[in-house]
């Protein structure tokens, strides 16, 4: 079976019609992973036993002629920050190198309940902290479109697996752009839903008020199917919203004519590479030709987003990562004589440089004498950034712009300059601070044939509209 361009519906229907068994489909994906992944590095762990048991269960349903669930037999991959019962989960960190979770993340259980076959766990930056996947404690991921370049981060493995046809669709997490930026670098679709739309239960926490789970897919329709499957209230996550889940797939074919599409001038300023600018301007023209009304809007506080974000995110991270102490799970240093020494040595040995940097920055921002100047100040600026969107969305239905100021950069290019790496997130962190949904879709390529991504922001809980615009654009090009 040709795995290129294989969508959820195509895979499911091939299984349903008996063209291929779910087991054979999973095996062909494993064969593809075995042949291609050594040069890409997307997978950290394969869960063959679990996948083949699930595939066999789907095959049994097919045999009996029973009604198949919406993801029946569809091979998926899961970012290694989501826990999977009995399948090693490391969050890309040495400190969780041997961690075998005793329970499943809600989003993963929901995919499996819908018939999906979980192929394995995908590489990522340590604790989802990074924009290039080079902070993985295990190995870097190479961008399938150009192996000398990064796939983006932190969900680099999730993006690369879809781009290289090593999964039909995958789950990632997005705390400051970690779904959208790698989607844009690898030329696939990546959706960060509204905060509270998808349960975070079983997502290893980085920054709890900014963390989101969302899908990577080949098409907007597949992203809609994935979101419909994983969204909705979960009593295990008290921040998951108690709101009905619309049928996102049914919304795709509603017309986009007459929709008001905002363009924020702050997203086209200094630092935006000319090729990316012209690709996005071209995509906006295309939306205009589909009958969308293009409206200029302003998000005046955008330049303060990165500093506000890196204070809030690191403060929350320093608190969340305090749990890794070598007592209940994870790495414990040998030979420590006292409890305090054991904590320190375990954390020193277990955490990589970026995790330590963020723990330090966050602890500093929360420490006595600096709390007001840094953490509290950043929280106030977060209000201003959120108001920017609330004001803009009084006038428009969606806002579009570039996902990243540049296409994928070279491996090693920014590893020694953390600030330069942070600035790569300039167009994505705002959606996390404000909790609004955002999607990145392929919108052309550079002269060097590197994918360029267009980002579409929507109002809170209005994933339906951004998916609809994404779908309309995809159909038109």
């Amino acid at each position, binding site marked *: 079976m040709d795995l290129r361009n294989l969508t959820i519906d195509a895979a499911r229907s091939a299984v349903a019609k008996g063209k291929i068994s779910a087991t054979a489909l999973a095996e062909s994906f494993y064969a593809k992973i075995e042949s291609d992944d050594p040069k890409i590095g997307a997978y950290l762990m394969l869960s063959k036993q679990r996948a083949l048991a699930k595939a066999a269960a789907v095959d049994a349903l097919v045999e009996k002629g029973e009604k198949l669930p919406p993801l029946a037999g569809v091979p998926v991959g899961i970012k290694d920050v989501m826990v999977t019962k009995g399948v090693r989960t490391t969050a890309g960190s040495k400190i969780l190198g*041997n*961690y*075998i979770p*005793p329970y499943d993340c809600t989003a993963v259980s929901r995919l499996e309940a819908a018939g999906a076959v979980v192929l394995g766990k995908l590489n990522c930056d340590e604790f989802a902290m990074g924009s290039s996947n080079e902070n993985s404690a295990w190995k870097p991921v190479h961008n399938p479109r150009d192996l000398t370049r990064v796939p983006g981060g932190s969900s680099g493995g999730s993006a690369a697996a879809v781009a290289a046809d090593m999964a039909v669709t995958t789950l990632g997490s997005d705390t400051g752009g970690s779904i959208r930026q790698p989607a844009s670098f690898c030329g696939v679709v990546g959706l960060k839903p*509204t*905060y*509270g739309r998808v349960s975070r239960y079983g997502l290893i926490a980085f920054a709890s*008020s900014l963390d989101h789970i969302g899908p990577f897919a080949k098409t907007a329709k597949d992203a809609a199917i994935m979101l419909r499957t994983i969204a909705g209230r979960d*009593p*295990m996550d*008290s*921040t998951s*919203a108690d*709101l009905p889940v619309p049928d996102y797939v049914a919304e795709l074919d509603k017309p986009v004519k007459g929709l008001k599409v905002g363009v924020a001038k702050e997203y086209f300023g200094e630092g935006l590479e000319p090729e990316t600018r012209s690709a996005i301007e071209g995509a906006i023209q295309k939306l205009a030709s589909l009958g969308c009304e293009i409206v200029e809007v302003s998000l005046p*506080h955008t330049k*303060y987003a*990165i*500093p506000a974000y890196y204070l809030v995110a690191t403060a929350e991270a*320093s608190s969340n990562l*305090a749990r890794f*102490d070598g*007592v*209940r*799970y*994870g790495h414990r240093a040998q030979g*420590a*004589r*006292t*409890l305090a020494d*054991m*904590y*320190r040595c375990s*954390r*020193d040995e277990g955490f990589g*440089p970026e995790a*330590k*940097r963020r*723990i*330090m*920055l966050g*602890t*500093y921002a929360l*420490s006595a004498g600096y709390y007001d100047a*840094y953490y*509290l*100040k950043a*929280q*106030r*600026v*977060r*209000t*201003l950034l*959120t108001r920017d969107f*609330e004001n803009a969305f009084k006038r428009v239905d969606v806002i579009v712009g570039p996902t990243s100021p540049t296409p994928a950069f070279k491996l090693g290019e920014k590893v020694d300059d*953390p*600030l330069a790496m942070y600035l790569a997130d300039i167009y994505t962190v705002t959606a996390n601070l*404000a*909790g609004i949904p955002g999607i990145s879709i392929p919108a052309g390529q550079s002269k060097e044939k590197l994918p360029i991504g267009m980002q579409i922001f929507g109002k*809170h*809980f209005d994933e339906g509209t951004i998916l609809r615009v994404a779908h309309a654009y995809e159909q038109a090009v």
Partner: protein
Amino acid sequence: MKVTEKDVTYVADLANLELTEQERGRMVRDLNSILGHVDSLSELDTSNVPPMAQVSDRFGLDDSKQGSERFAYASREDVHEGLRKSLPHDVALVNAPDSDGTFFKVPKVIER
């Protein structure tokens, strides 16, 4: 330079990190570079802007309700084994670096 080596040692202590000599030097450099960028926030007058710790109270809720009433859906009755059973002992201890089958074991807590 805002952050000195002494600050780094103090903050590492708060964060239960030790850091090598080399790591500390690098941390001084990196924190100063990042905090230099962060300083732009002081251009903004935020004296009348409320802080925002999370986004859930800004949307998707019944606006006629106030305070904790708005989040009533997020609470549940406090019942024994409410949402799921606690993990059995053997499962809870399976990832422990050291245990005696009943408790997690750690090095001495108090030095005599």
